[in-house]
């Protein structure tokens, strides 16, 4: 799970947040200090459409 900094009270907004031992990440999420980084879906394999009608 990756997190992104939102509030400058945590670090530089936009940077990835690396959870530190002892820090309550759920509280940071609830307070709006960080957000979960959007997971990019892997690109699917391109499929050729058979247009050759016989």
């Amino acid at each position, binding site marked *: 799970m990756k997190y992104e900094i939102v509030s400058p009270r945590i670090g530089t907004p936009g940077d990835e947040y690396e959870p530190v031992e002892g820090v*309550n990440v759920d509280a940071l999420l609830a307070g709006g200090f960080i957000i979960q980084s959007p997971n990019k879906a892997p690109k699917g394999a391109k499929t050729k459409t058979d247009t050759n009608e016989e």
Partner: protein
Amino acid sequence: MATSTYLSSPVVTVNAVDLTDQCNAAAITRFLEALESTAFGSSSRVYVKGLENSTLTLSLYNSFALTETYATLNALVGTSTTVTLKPTSAATSATNPIFTLTGTYLETLPLVNGQLGALDTIDIVFTGGVFSVAIV
């Protein structure tokens, strides 16, 4: 003569959130329980070290704005977290150590402490956890 004068620079973090600009008093105190070990033949009481129960006390201006005091503390009450206190904002060093309580417990959270014509301020205490000090 050694003195420490605090004008404006101590740095306070709660759960990795920098609350320095909302804090006007901070005190970290090491407390190690005293276990009495006085035995027959002793002419005075003697003690040995027991469990550590250190505390960090903060006075904060209350703010319900986004990512301010309330947003920082609301989800922490009744849980354990990490807090730090550094005497000045200068780089951490042997003369400016950073004190940390890891796994310290927030038992109570005053929500509103309103008074006509005064800023809303709250006092909170983090209790217990593992104390450490770093100089780098």
